[in-house]
């Protein structure tokens, strides 16, 4: 039982925290929203590459730095604290880990090496409107025809679609199994509809109409296990990112309560407000515990891992919403303005629950396995 960070991990945390403070202030983030240089060309992404951050969470066998769940937690927590808009999780970790688990050597050279090298970003399309958060109940199909595959279907909420050089797509095969394909951007028959999310991220829907892919674009003809593993990594990472944002919301709210005066005294001096602040802090600390639980569960058996991570994601989803709502309320009318820095944090904390399965979805997972627990 050990909660201390190693020296390397402490350095990683300090480096990132400094970088985020320098490069991603509230004003700089506003500017980034309108930055034309998105994706891998973005200056901050290139800094990530120079710092080795893009190699960190991958195993040595694919050229990574062998980072574990704790390393991933440190990185995403720091990025979450500053609401850093770069798609570290969705554009790098999720598609990258899936490639690491499924791709052949040639496929890794083609897609994974440039990803880790900061030459391109990717995306993962696993969700469909009718299937909601269920990764398996999808209707996109892939049919083998002679020496190629043909994909038809529609994917939704594909994070980082716009900047992705290619998108990894799950599809049902004739075997009934789940397949995984890499679809380069601008493939004939693939059309994207890009939008911004409520919390200022880039996403899109992808329609595939008889998209023809050569055999070397098929990454796996049975990807369920690998997909579960990667979604678990993603959920643990998302909790860490939300934890960083929860810290930021609590810090900002506490400062505001200490500065803002009404009735001739600071808001912090009102007990009803200070106890609400303590409630936020309690939710934050319990979420930190659940995030640690998730981060340290990645190497367990799939049943144990998925149970703990579902519990963590459900718990953090509720906590994040609670903290966001309290933060808005305690900022008073200022908290309702887009100009107030708490606004972006609150938007992310509420919307975070929707990514990679929401609280209801994960509670169901915990509930299904309750008897065994």
């Amino acid at each position: 039982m050990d909660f201390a960070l190693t020296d390397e991990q402490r350095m990683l945390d300090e480096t990132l925290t400094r970088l985020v403070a320098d490069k991603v202030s509230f004003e700089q983030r506003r500017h980034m929203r309108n930055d034309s240089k998105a994706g891998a060309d973005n200056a901050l992404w290139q800094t990530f590459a120079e710092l080795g951050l893009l190699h960190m969470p991958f195993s040595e066998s694919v050229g990574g730095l062998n980072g574990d769940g704790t390393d991933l937690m440190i990185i995403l927590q720091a990025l979450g604290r500053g609401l850093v808009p770069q798609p570290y999780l969705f554009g790098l970790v999720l598609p990258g880990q899936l490639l690491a688990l499924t791709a052949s050597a040639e496929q890794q050279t083609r897609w994974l090496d440039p990803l880790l090298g900061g030459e391109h970003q990717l995306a993962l399309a696993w969700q469909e409107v009718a299937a909601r958060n269920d990764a398996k109940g999808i209707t996109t199909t892939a049919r083998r025809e002679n020496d190629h595959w043909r994909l038809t279907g529609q994917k939704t909420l594909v994070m980082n679609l716009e900047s992705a050089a290619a998108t990894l797509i799950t599809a049902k095969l004739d075997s009934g199994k789940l397949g995984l394909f890499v679809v380069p951007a601008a493939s004939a028959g693939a059309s994207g509809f890009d939008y911004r999310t409520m919390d200022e991220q880039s996403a899109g829907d992808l329609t595939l109409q008889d998209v023809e892919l050569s055999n070397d674009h098929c990454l796996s003809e049975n990807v369920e296990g690998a997909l579960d593993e990667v979604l678990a990594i993603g959920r643990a990472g998302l909790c860490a990112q939300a934890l960083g944002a929860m810290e930021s919301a609590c810090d900002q709210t506490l400062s505001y309560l200490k500065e803002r005066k009404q009735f001739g005294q600071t808001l912090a001096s009102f007990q009803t407000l200070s106890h609400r602040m303590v409630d936020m802090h309690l939710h934050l600390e319990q979420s930190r515990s659940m995030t640690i639980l998730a981060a340290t569960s990645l190497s367990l058996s799939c049943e144990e891992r998925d149970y703990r991570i579902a519990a963590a994601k459900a718990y953090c989803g509720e906590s994040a919403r609670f903290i966001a709502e309290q933060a808005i309320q305690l900022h008073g009318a200022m908290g309702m303005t887009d100009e107030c820095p708490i606004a972006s944090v609150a938007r992310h904390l509420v919307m975070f629950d929707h990514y990679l399965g929401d609280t209801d979805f994960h509670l169901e997972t915990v509930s299904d396995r309750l008897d065994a627990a």
Partner: protein
Amino acid sequence: MNLTFTAEEQRFRTEVRQFLVDALPGDIQERVRLGRHLRADDHLRWQNLLSRQGWLAAHWPVEHGGPGWGPVQRHIFDEECAAAHAPTVVPFGVTMVAPVLMKFGTAEQQARYLPRILDNRDWWCQGYSEPGAGSDLASLTTRAVRENDHYIVNGQKTWTTLGQHANMLFCLVRTDPAAKKQAGISFLLIDMQTPGITVRPIITLDGAHEVNEVFLDNVRVPVENRVSDEGQGWTCAKFLLTHERTGIAGLGHAKQALRHLKSLAKRIEHRGKPLLEQPSFRQRVVKAELELMALEVTNLRVIAAARDGGAPGAESSLLKVRGSELRQELSELTRRALGPAAVAFFPEFLYGDEPLDESYATSAAASAQYFNRRKLSIYGGANEIQKSIVAKTILGM
């Protein structure tokens, strides 16, 4: 980071578990399991067994006769005891007054009282709260006036847990009414046999006699029974409140309560299916499970910090608030799980020695315990006080 116990810690867990299997008397275990009150003799029998094993004074350093355990071992011990339905050690001597004596007592006081705590010759109780001094403890008015080599003590203490069995009382008294309120308080050790002491039961809303009022009427206490200097009583009291509170969440009890709830809800049928499959009930159990998972990791974080030399300060307030809320929710769910069976009340069985048919016995304690657990968010500093501590010391508000 990792959440796993070392091989040595796991061996320790096995050793504790085996000891509990071998040593815990079946009749005591059964009383705890059914939620029945223990008689004074039950407490003493169990504590004598622990004492013989060298495990009674879990917090004590080796030189005073403790087992030399760290916070991790104490945590494991508490968990295993709760899981085995072992009684909780009555804390007032071994975990409350003893650390104060070790820190502030004279060599004579230590030599006189510590061995008597270690072999259960003395049963201590606490004289802190008064009718007019609850959360605002420092406003206490029990007065001690110096008369040669004695103090003459007059006043009233309340919420004195198990005072009906005790022969010793540690007591906060006001020695200087002119001083600032914390500065006028002293810490006295009082023999309950001294003339002028009356103990009167308080029956709580669960029908139980657990706490008492203690009246002190011209009670003569030798000056050598004062711990630390005159006016230093508040320092002793504060030390006690921050000393080793890593177990304050009651995690072992919460785990045991959740296990019990789940097995109950699997056994009890609702429309031909186990109650645990009823969606709205199951959802509340799931939420409790999540809260327990979070609380356990938070508790382990505090334990690891204590092990590595940090003192658990205000973090223990977080554990107390969340731990008490969870245990109260579990007592509520247990009562609800039993449904109609939770309504009948058998105080002579729960608090006395009357037998009760097995079909009633297993559910008899649920509602009483629900009401009893209300105390968790009130005693030891109400949860609202805990929140004010967090606001002040962690958040700087």
